[in-house]
């Protein structure tokens, strides 16, 4: 289905919609964008871009069967960027009064009088802007009341406690639902907006044995409530993940293969997307500097950006500047195809903008042909990482050293839990030494990947 910008927003939902009812109508938000654009032009801005966003949400937490927190969210913000020739100013406010709109526009204009001209500053080329876009199926209000959320959270937590008697404490189960609407407009005539929803269930439990306590969690998140994992399953998974960590040991210092579980593999791909982002390139602060055309990964690796995927969590019809997004390859047969660029980074690097104002969306690693068990078997003996802590990644050099927990694996089978060790290497080298990607793809975020096996890393322990 394709819709024109003016009709991109369906009629407002009825007010019986309870917690999902937005308190600003699409019309009033669009009007606010228009008035912001006009106010900036009246004050001499040569170009202006404005975003008005609004969201409502409910977050309910239950701990040990009782409501612990009930939070009602209602956010709104107006932000704008003005250009006076090549000078730029930005301002934002959460205050939606008429006076605040004027004050905010004036603050942006005042800043632009002081900032220095940047030859690369400015709006995106109108030719790249989205003129029409598909409905990406992102808006599915749940209509879950506080009472229903309470029951759901109780169900999650109870399933966790029931799953194993070593679960002796809880940090709680929570249900969250949020609906947002945003409009972007600019002085070149672009005006677009869309609504989106995001719902989640989560649970964090604590288990104890003679050696001490362990905590872990499970969660599910989706645009549509029907895509969420069942409540009982979230509770059981949290319990399993927690209990299996009991009795964790250190390893002795060694080199060995490392298998990153999907939710950890995502962080490796995250380092890749940061390294190919415009600012990392033009600031020359990337370990993948000027790497287009280079073999960054082994020849079998394929990575795409898929911002147009219906219902996916990272999807967007156009980027933060109104540039149309499109599905495209980032890595083909191991070779870097493109950076992720907004219009500024594009001009800096002499390349076309790629619709990445606001980042890369739904970065998708093509799965191989092995499931998780087959990957464990392929690794044979090595370390399975299920948790990483700390920020030990140097984006300039690719040097990598992070705290890890997981399991020691022999003959493709989990032997015992491991904690208080680090894994280290250099990302450039780790990318080259990737041996396989699993079919166990985790789609709960903006990066979709299965488990990733790295041939060898340094494990530091005793």
């Amino acid at each position, binding site marked *: 289905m394709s819709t024109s910008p003016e009709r991109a927003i369906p009629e407002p939902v009825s007010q019986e919609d309870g917690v999902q009812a937005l308190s600003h109508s699409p019309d009033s938000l669009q009007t606010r964008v228009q008035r912001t654009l006009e106010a900036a032009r009246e004050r001499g801005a040569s170009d202006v871009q404005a975003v008005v966003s609004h969201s409502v949400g409910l977050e309910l937490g239950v*701990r040990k069967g009782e409501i*612990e927190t*009930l939070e*009602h*969210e*209602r*956010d*709104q913000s107006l932000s704008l960027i003005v250009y006076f020739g090549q000078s*730029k*100013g*930005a*301002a*934002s*406010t*959460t205050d*939606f009064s008429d006076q605040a709109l004027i*004050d*905010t526009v004036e*603050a942006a204009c*005042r*800043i632009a009088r*002081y*900032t*220095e*001209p*940047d030859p690369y500053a400015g709006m995106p080329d109108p030719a790249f802007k989205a003129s029409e876009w598909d409905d990406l199926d992102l808006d599915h209000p749940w209509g879950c009341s506080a009472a229903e959320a309470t029951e759901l959270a109780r169900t999650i937590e109870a399933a966790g406690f029931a799953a194993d008697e070593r679960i002796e*404490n809880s*940090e709680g189960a929570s249900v969250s639902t949020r609906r947002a609407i945003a409009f972007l407009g600019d002085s070149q005539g672009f005006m677009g907006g869309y609504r989106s929803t995001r719902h989640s269930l989560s649970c964090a439990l*604590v288990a104890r044995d003679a050696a*001490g*306590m*362990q905590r872990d969690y499970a969660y599910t998140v989706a645009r549509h409530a029907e895509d969420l994992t069942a409540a009982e399953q979230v509770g059981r998974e949290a319990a399993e993940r927690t209990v299996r*960590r009991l009795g*964790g040991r250190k390893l002795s*210092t060694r080199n060995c293969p490392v298998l990153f579980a999907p939710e950890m593999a995502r962080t490796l791909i995250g380092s890749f997307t940061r390294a190919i982002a415009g600012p990392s390139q033009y*600031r*020359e*602060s990337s370990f993948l500097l000027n790497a287009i055309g280079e073999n960054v990964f082994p020849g079998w690796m394929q990575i795409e950006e898929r911002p147009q995927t219906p219902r996916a969590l990272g999807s967007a019809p156009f980027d933060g500047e109104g540039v149309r997004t499109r599905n495209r390859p980032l890595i083909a047969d191991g070779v870097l195809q493109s950076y992720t660029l907004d219009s500024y980074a594009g001009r800096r690097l002499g390349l076309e903008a790629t619709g990445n104002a606001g980042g890369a969306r739904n970065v998708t690693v093509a799965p191989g042909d092995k499931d998780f068990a087959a990957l464990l078997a392929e690794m044979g003996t090595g370390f399975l990482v299920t948790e990483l*802590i*700390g*920020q*030990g990644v*140097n984006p300039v*050099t690719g040097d990598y*050293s*992070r*705290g890890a*927990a997981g399991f020691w694996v022999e003959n493709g089978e989990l032997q015992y839990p491991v*904690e*208080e*060790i*680090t*894994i*280290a*290497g250099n990302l450039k080298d780790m990318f080259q030494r990737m041996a396989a990607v699993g079919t166990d793809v985790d789609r709960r975020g903006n990066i979709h990947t299965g488990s990733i096996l790295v041939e060898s890393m*340094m*494990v*530091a*322990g*005793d």
Partner: protein
Amino acid sequence: MIDRLAQQTLLDPAGLGESELSSLLGTTFGHGIDGGDCYFQFSSQEGWSLEDGIVKSASFNIERGVGIRVVRGEQTGFAYSDDIAMPAMLEAAKTARSIASAGQSGRIAVASRSSSRPALYAPDNPLDSLGEQAKIDLLKEVDAVARAEDSRVTQVMCSLAGVHEVVLVLNARGEMTTDVRPLVRLNVQVIVEQGGRRESGTSGGGGRHGYQYFREDGRAAGYAREAVRQALVNLDARDAPAGSMKVVLGPGWPGILLHEAIGHGLEGDFNRKGTSAFSGRIGEQVAAKGITIVDDGTLEGRRGSLNVDDEGNPTQQTVLIEDGVLRGYMQDEMNARLMGTQSTGNGRRESYARLPMPRMTNTYMLGGDADPEEILASVDDGLYAVNFGGGQVDITSGKFVFSASEAYRVENGKVTYPVKGATLIGNGPDVLTRVSMIGNDMKLDSGVGTCGKEGQGVPVGVGQPTLRIDGMTVGGTQAA
């Protein structure tokens, strides 16, 4: 005393007088409610950044709103509004109160809380402390100093940020407290290049001051030179060692060790729920003798300091560990009440739109008597780590990490060569039992820390003297 600025910024525009507030309190709290508050906040902040030698972008943001929190037993109801006006507040109050059974209609008298303690910072708006051109000039000076320092500097990115926050807390007992909080920060990052190898260095500082702070004592230029120095050291860094070894930590920012290993585990909420590795361990020896660690929100002008916390309670110095023995937890009102103790002035929140919880302020270890030179000379084979990036902790298992960004190998009592950044990992409840020497050079960090908990960031400080720890796991790539 109600601060006049708070009155003018938060109450007057909405026509909120004593009568309206008294009725708001009566509707929100009263029978069956154990606590809570109406938290009014106005904050204005700006950021200026320099890149490629020019200040090409800057932003200005305003946030205004009120958060209404109702606490009953272990339950919290919460709603907020961007609109400080009676109808919106009554609606939020009704929503927040929905955890309690029946509605209310009484009145609760309002009384302002006064403080006899001198203010820890001036209430002046730091955004007005320098003209716009002077802010730009300051950044350009930092850029020029960094570039003049060494020809291998290829990129300089620096930013200047200021926040002015006006807070008014009206609690369920009708007590009203105000605080006006300035906060400034200057950050410098440089990239250096030599023979195709690139490294970065970062430095900065700040506190609850005006921007003049950066002009005093040559601070701004000092940050620039320090960032370049660190980057150049890293150009010569060899692979870091892997495995367990003796570690000497430098003074100041390496105190992030205490924040991660000990601090979070001593926050009241985790201990009330029994999910901390330190739960139920008050009175136990958890650190070597001679180690005393405090959390102190009362240090003048520091980034982590507050006149009052976000529940309106005065901050204080809380002894966490005394001569190696665990003494106390950091509490907000709710967790203190549930644990039968008093708030320690550690109830903090990121903004009116988020719930307060027990958080650290400035957490540091008192100095000992060892000469730092002697400490290094005593190590036959180990690592000397002087600068760090961030850290993280798993409260329940006690495992924590912090990542070195400047470190050296120590051999036969001598610092021999720089090594690449590496993560250090340990176990909170026992790492401090392995401290064998405590330096006499206690230092607080330069004012750069932001602590994250449940998605809320708050400014904090850390500090410590030079320390020798006998046995920590160093996460390098080179087998020892």
